[in-house]
């Protein structure tokens, strides 16, 4: 890839990642959400991998990293669903930030998003879905780039 692309790809990737995080965090009141934000973060990672190539890319995830955050995303979603099941009677029931009325008001104001629609657990579901999607999509692209590299090496031999 050209020098200009190599110079501009990392700053654009960082800004794309920040935009993706912003989309995840506003998912309960604006268009977008966990999947869309996660896909935007993955787009930043993919841009970096495409321009610099696998092995030279500044943003690259190890197998352990992918494994850990994919698991945290899935488990977090299930745990929030189970909290709804036990506290409200239905899987993914929106119990809000104040589970069983035991959380102090000072902590509630931090984790309870103060919008008029009372989002409850939706922002947290978005965060877990976003984590899972960004790691999953990045893993797919890293795998494809790795396969391509292997095929090219085979063709050379």
């Amino acid at each position, binding site marked *: 890839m050209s*020098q200009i692309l*190599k*110079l501009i790809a*990392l*700053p654009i990737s*960082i*800004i794309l*990642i*920040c*935009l993706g*995080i*912003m989309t*995840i*965090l*506003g998912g309960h*009141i*604006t268009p977008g959400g966990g999947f869309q934000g996660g896909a935007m*973060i993955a787009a930043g990672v993919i841009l970096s991998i495409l321009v*610099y190539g696998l*092995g*030279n*890319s*500044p*943003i*690259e*995830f*190890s197998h352990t*990293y992918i494994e850990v*955050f994919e698991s945290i995303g899935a488990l977090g979603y299930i745990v929030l669903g189970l909290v709804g099941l036990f506290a409200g009677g239905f899987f993914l029931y929106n119990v809000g930030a104040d589970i069983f009325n035991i959380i102090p008001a000072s902590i509630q*104001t*931090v*984790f*309870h*998003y*103060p*919008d*008029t629609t009372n989002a409850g657990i939706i*922002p947290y579901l978005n*965060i877990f879905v*976003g*984590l899972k999607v*960004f790691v999953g999509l990045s893993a797919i692209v890293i795998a494809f780039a790795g396969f391509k590299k292997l095929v090219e090496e085979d063709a050379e031999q």
Partner: protein
Amino acid sequence: MIAIGPIIFGLILGLIIGSQIKTGNISDTSFKTSSYVVIIIAALIMAWQLGEFPFYDYFPLSSAFASALIGVLLSKLIFARSS
């Protein structure tokens, strides 16, 4: 009033992703401190143009975007400094 939730979670997500940014991998282009200053200026202009986000946040800067940027750069400094 500034909502603290998006700031905290923006920082956490930024810290998670920024820990994997390793500029030492790049072969023929170098990213020095001045490059990060340019990134910060560009991102702050972008945050300003994005406006109040989340919308119930009465602060003329996208706090979620700004905190994500701080998280990414902070994490790059802490976890991926040598590489």
